[in-house]
């Protein structure tokens, strides 16, 4: 079996303790939560930290709460918790959709939202979801807390704005009334990383037109939302023709690479196809949410 190189291990007892440990052990220390990205890299000896700081005891970060206009998710909330949450299903079905296709149920028992976002794998689903939901990342360090938009948080493949001596502690999602959201992924097999995926969030105005929309893509070389789509959709009543146009814009906006999962034009096609699908679903859900309120 593959085996990691030697390292020292310490378990953090609180967020402050974790920050102190990061500070003490410096650049060659790494935080481990679920460990399903880091440990395989360590077994391949592609990652060789001197210190591993285990934050699995930070139960203070394992929460999910609706706090007025925002949903607050602690960085240590496990994927399974997110998948099974009724609040999330109701407010942000895009998260439920995404969680259902992240890795497999057993990995989801260990993996955390914080770990996923900090790993920042280009094929990682929750990064896209957070972009789409305009989430705010709460990062704590020696100098206190910083609030980062996803655009500021996510610096590119495998890179975030979280400094070596900082910890992502919470993700906040603004709750919008009359909204719907959806996520869809194409994978070669259950549990595989995305060939491509798309997520969308739509808010409908009182006149039935789209008052707010965001579309994000996974694994196709786009580290932002498809802003081109937003310009075209806002203010319009949702129609199939608009979705088709949005799909076209998404396929142009992305910049995929050819690999074992498929050639570039296929991935561009998926950006198009999946954008249309998630917009349809998001609008349908938004409309349902409007009718619920009306009733």
């Amino acid at each position, binding site marked *: *079996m593959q085996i990691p190189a*030697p390292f020292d*291990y310490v*378990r953090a007892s609180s967020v402050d303790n974790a920050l102190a440990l990061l500070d003490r052990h410096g650049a060659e220390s790494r935080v481990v939560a679920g*460990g399903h990205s880091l440990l*395989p890299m360590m077994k391949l000896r592609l990652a060789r930290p001197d210190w*591993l700081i285990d934050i699995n005891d930070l139960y203070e970060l394992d929460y999910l709460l609706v706090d007025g206009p925002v949903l607050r998710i602690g960085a240590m909330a496990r994927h399974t918790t997110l998948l099974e949450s009724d609040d999330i299903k109701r407010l942000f079905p895009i998260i439920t959709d995404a969680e259902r296709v992240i890795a497999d149920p057993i990995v989801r028992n260990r993996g955390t939202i914080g770990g996923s976002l900090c790993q920042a794998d280009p094929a990682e689903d929750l990064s896209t979801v957070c972009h789409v939901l305009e989430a705010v990342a709460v990062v704590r360090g020696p100098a206190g807390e910083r609030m980062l938009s996803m655009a500021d948080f996510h610096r590119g493949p495998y890179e975030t704005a979280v400094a070596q001596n900082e910890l992502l502690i919470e993700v906040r999602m603004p709750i919008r009334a009359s909204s719907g959201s959806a996520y869809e992924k194409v994978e070669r097999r259950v549990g595989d990383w995305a060939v491509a995926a798309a997520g969308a969030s739509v808010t409908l105005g009182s006149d039935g037109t789209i008052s707010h929309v965001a579309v994000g893509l996974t694994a196709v070389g786009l580290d932002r939302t498809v802003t081109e789509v937003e310009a075209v959709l806002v203010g319009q009543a949702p129609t199939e023709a608009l979705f088709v146009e949005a799909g076209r814009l998404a396929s142009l906006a992305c910049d995929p690479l050819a690999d074992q999962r498929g050639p570039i034009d296929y991935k561009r096609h998926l950006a198009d196809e999946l954008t249309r699908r998630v917009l349809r679903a998001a609008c349908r859900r938004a409309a349902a949410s409007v009718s619920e309120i009306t009733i």
Partner: protein
Amino acid sequence: MQINLTVNGTDVTREIEPRVLLVHFIRDDLRLTGTHWGCDTSNCGTCVVLMDGQPVKSCTVLAAMADGHAITTVEGLANGATLDPVQQGFMEEHGLQCGFCTPGMMLTARALLDHNPHPEPLEIREAISGQICRCTGYATIVRSIQWAAEHSISAADTAEEEVRA
């Protein structure tokens, strides 16, 4: 470093290297060889054990991370000579061939039934979708778990019966 944990209900204290994988700790230090490993990358689920009742892939958990937790391996499934209904189900419905993935499959099945005593076939398939079996083609594993569900007296069922009574 020293770790203290519970394995199959027994308290265990051991001195270990921090990098020891939980699967190696279980197999090599505790000599509980019913837990296997198959892939290194947490894709196959051959190494599944229960940690505080939840299935985890022990090739991707450090033994150090299990400090203070309760681990159940296949050796802890039976109650003495009495097999868990899941174990009986796998024998009744031919849920195993080479037996290599079987311990992990059975532990996931146990956790599933504890959580959901009467799962639908699709729920069973989803629950075991992080585990690979190269021999059975899964249908008999699904049947085995259904057999176990039909032959288990779960806490939920007991409560229901009490309510009825």
